[in-house]
């Protein structure tokens, strides 16, 4: 059964002006704060400000995208986060090369 509702709403763009803190990043990819700390240590996400303390971490769209991909790899393939990080790097390299080919008209 499907019904429709319509709402006018405002939004924020995840950007330099409105970054995500570690808690928001954890919520956004269904993870814990400790998971974000581990993802930082593995280089999956890279906080753009004061990296010394998790309270000062700021994340942007690219971090959220990578964090979500890493979570998916962990869940779907049942692999440890360090293996997910490796797969993620290889996956991104494949996409980058495909994009280069596409940009050159192939």
């Amino acid at each position: 059964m499907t019904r429709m509702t319509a709402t006018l709403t405002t939004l924020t763009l995840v950007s330099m002006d409105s970054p995500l803190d570690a808690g928001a990043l954890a919520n956004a990819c269904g993870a814990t704060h400790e998971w974000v700390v581990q993802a930082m240590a593995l280089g999956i996400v890279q906080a753009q400000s004061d990296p010394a303390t998790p309270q000062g971490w700021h994340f942007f769209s690219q971090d959220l995208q990578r964090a979500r991909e890493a979570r998916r790899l962990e869940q779907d393939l049942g692999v440890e986060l360090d293996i997910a990080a490796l797969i993620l790097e290889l996956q991104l390299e494949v996409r980058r090369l495909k994009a280069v080919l596409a940009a050159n008209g192939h």
Partner: protein
Amino acid sequence: MEFKDYYKTLGVARGASPDEVRKAYRKLARKYHPDVSKEPDAQLRMRDVNEANDVLRDEEKRAAYDALADRVAAGGKQADDGFQPPPGWDEGFEFHQGPDARPAGDAEFSEFFSSVFGDAARRAASEKGYRARGEDHHAAIEISLEDAILGAERQITLRALDREAEGRAAVVNRTLSVKIPAGVRPGQYIRLAGYGMPGRGGEPAGDLYLEVRIAPHPLYRVQGLDLTMDLPVTPSEAALGAKVHVPLPGGGVVEVTVPPNSHAGRKLRVRDRGLHGKPPGHLVLLVQIALPPAQTEAARKAYQALAQAAPLNPRQHWPGVQT
């Protein structure tokens, strides 16, 4: 709504062991993962495979799904408006939102999944008096390149769960009117606070994240912040150099100098005319030579005169080939 046979999707028997489920999933993931698959419908197939795996690898969900499948099989054919989970089908089953579980409202999963497992998980949680902030919800929004550069107001329709008066779960198409800011980039996230899954026990709702995707454009290809477009020029423009006008994605035209002796594939860069950013991307023009057809006597003579005036053998480096 259609009842989904998750065992069929993964190609395993009803009694398959967790190891067999995992092996079947990995085999199909290799076949259909969009990054490596050559199958035309890879993305759709991968979604189905992910969804089936999410249920069958989870002991609680799998047991509840098996019970539901048995009831459906015993109940004969589906109703005219498709499959609806029978009331109380999940009694006796517990659903835990563990660290490895996908949100029940994952927009990448089917209406069947959201309806069956989203409602069951929420009911189980509310019966236990559980308090928790609602899960964040994710969806993608595809916009045109022009809208990304100039901004636009767009309506998006999202699938969400709601409860009808008689307590049965209903899938609601929630339409949101959102104002997309100018300068948004592909892969950037738009956050709508409070539009995720409802909270439990009085806790606030989660947020909705929309991932921006740029629809394919007939002229421009997006690579990071750069935009690439083919620049067709005539042989004389390529050889002698020329000034040509190039349309910009945000409107307007820019004059570009094609240097003399440009070859096909040469890249010309129009600085800072790509997507917004700090620093902004560039517009990259890929020179392509468009040959005038030799359809008239005058054109044929012109080509012959060119061949005599500027002889060239472009295959001279091929081994064993003289002409």
